[in-house]
């Protein structure tokens, strides 16, 4: 009943000695640090895949108000269903994460860092606080870091309080500022107007750990892994119907079929890629690649075995979104509730195909008109399940399931 380590393969991070990346970064100019990250083609590991170097460049160029501080925020809200790789990084590769934040701070000229840790992970606090204290003692945080005159940076930990939407970067900032976690309109973007109105870089835990690896081993090394548009290795959180669920590392570009083979999931009926906000891929499409140019994901892979009821899966995802929508905008608040109702009609075998088409139109509206990524992506699973498993979900009778 006690949690065990989730690691199922050795990770490249095992080969990166803590301190190596930061030492290399401090030998470079700020522009060259960003240049290295840009040249690596690293894209955000939190799901959206924004190029990290570009984000840092914008934040480096931005001017703080009244000469105020800039901020580096590590997004450790890890709330996407089926995602748990950041937990492994935070517990087992802690220094690489804090080191990545420190490198980011150096690059953009930030003096303060915040680790925004989901409330569910509060049990990690003693460990994380201990590592921060050790880093201060070692001169890796604080004033004149590792003897670099004028480079002052420290990290605070702030806890989330049980809201998935707070993983969205502007909601996260609202939460840090003491407000309800309701996403903001963008622009302005956090790189210009972030925490307390100051330029702020928000990066995922894995993105920051990858930065440490890239500075340690070089952009060319990283870019040689993966595909042209999706450079590098990536952690995957694998759960559901497979022989060995856990955290795996694969190069981006791996096919669904190849991944299933490694995790003991061959013969699956479907795989959800990207969590509740991702898409459901049927067996006929297992040749597709997991990469930003095909199936993009923050790393959540949920395997569904042959016996699974896909409507039940769609319903579970939709219940999640109804629960987690912040309720700020109508397409998302009302749309998710309407879709859940539709799923319940399908369950009862009481949904005409005309009404199903109406629901699919509603999905399109939600994707276009919702204010943030939650509402924009909440219909994805429903749409893909309805599309691929139509004969399974129409005309149900009570006895069938």
């Amino acid at each position, binding site marked *: 009943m006690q949690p065990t380590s989730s690691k199922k393969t050795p990770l490249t991070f095992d080969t990166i000695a803590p301190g190596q990346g930061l030492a290399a970064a401090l030998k470079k100019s700020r522009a060259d640090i960003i240049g290295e990250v840009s040249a690596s083609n690293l894209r955000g590991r939190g799901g959206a895949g924004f190029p990290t170097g570009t984000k840092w460049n914008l934040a480096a160029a931005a001017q703080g108000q009244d000469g105020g501080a800039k901020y580096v925020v590590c997004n450790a809200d890890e709330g996407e*269903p089926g995602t748990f790789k950041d937990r492994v990084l935070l517990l087992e590769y802690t220094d690489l994460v804090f080191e990545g934040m420190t490198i980011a701070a150096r690059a953009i000229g930030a003096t303060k860092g915040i680790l925004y840790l989901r409330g569910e992970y509060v049990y990690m606090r003693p460990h994380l606080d201990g590592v921060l204290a050790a880093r201060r003692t070692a001169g890796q945080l604080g004033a004149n870091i590792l003897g670099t005159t004028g480079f002052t940076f420290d990290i605070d930990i702030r*806890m989330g309080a049980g809201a998935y939407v707070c993983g969205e970067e502007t909601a996260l900032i609202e939460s840090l500022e003491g407000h309800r976690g309701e996403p903001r309109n963008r622009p302005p973007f956090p790189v210009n107007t972030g925490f307390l109105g100051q330029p702020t870089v928000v990066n995922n835990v894995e993105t920051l750990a990858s930065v440490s690896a890239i500075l340690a081993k070089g952009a060319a090394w990283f870019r040689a892994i993966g595909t042209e548009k999706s450079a590098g290795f990536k952690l995957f959180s694998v759960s559901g119907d497979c022989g060995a669920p856990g955290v795996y590392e694969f190069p981006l570009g791996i096919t669904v079929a190849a991944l299933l083979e490694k995790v003991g999931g061959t013969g699956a009926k479907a795989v959800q890629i990207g969590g509740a906000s991702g898409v459901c891929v049927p067996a006929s499409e297992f040749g597709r690649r997991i990469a930003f140019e095909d199936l993009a994901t923050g790393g959540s892979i949920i395997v569904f075995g042959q016996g699974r009821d896909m409507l039940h899966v769609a319903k579970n995802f939709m219940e999640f979104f109804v629960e987690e929508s912040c309720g700020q905008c109508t397409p998302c608040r009302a749309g998710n509730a309407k879709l859940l109702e539709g799923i319940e009609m399908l369950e009862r075998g009481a949904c005409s195909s005309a009404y199903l088409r109406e629901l699919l139109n509603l999905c399109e509206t939600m994707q276009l008109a919702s204010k943030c990524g939650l509402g924009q992506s909440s219909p994805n699973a429903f749409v893909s399940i309805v599309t691929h498993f139509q004969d399974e979900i129409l005309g149900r009778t009570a006895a069938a399931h």
Partner: protein
Amino acid sequence: MLVSQQQKLQDEIRALAARHGRTRAALVPILQDLQVRYASVSDFAMQVVADEVGIHPAEVYGVVSFYAFLHSQPSGRFQIRLCQTISCDLAGKARVARQLENELGIRFGETTPDGRFSLEWASCLGMCDQGPALLVNDRVYTRVSAEQVHRIIDDCRKVFGAHAAQAAHAAHA
């Protein structure tokens, strides 16, 4: 609430505000500390917090009501949160849920009459490879089976007994 209790709470909130800062950005950390100590944030506490950080109490209420881990109503000393999301669902959370209700004699969303246990649903806890997963306060239990539920609850009862004994001891000392 007794005046002396109110005074004590007020002092405690002032101390928290001094530690976290008297700014709006300190609001959530202050509320989180209160939630841990009192298992809820009362109307009175919200008023004092509002004064300390210089905002209207309605704003504080707006924040408390937004976050699943902050409660304006008293909740149990032990908050049991069972993950209801897909991987734990596939792993058999329904039977664990049923057994939790059976053992505690309450439904999800309720607190036992003695104030010891609250039962709630949670969204994905980040333990999807080891489901069904649940949290008891800040402790994680994984691969929970229906059969193990009573042991988890017994563990809590023992802790509670120990705390009560300690508190009584402290009061007499």
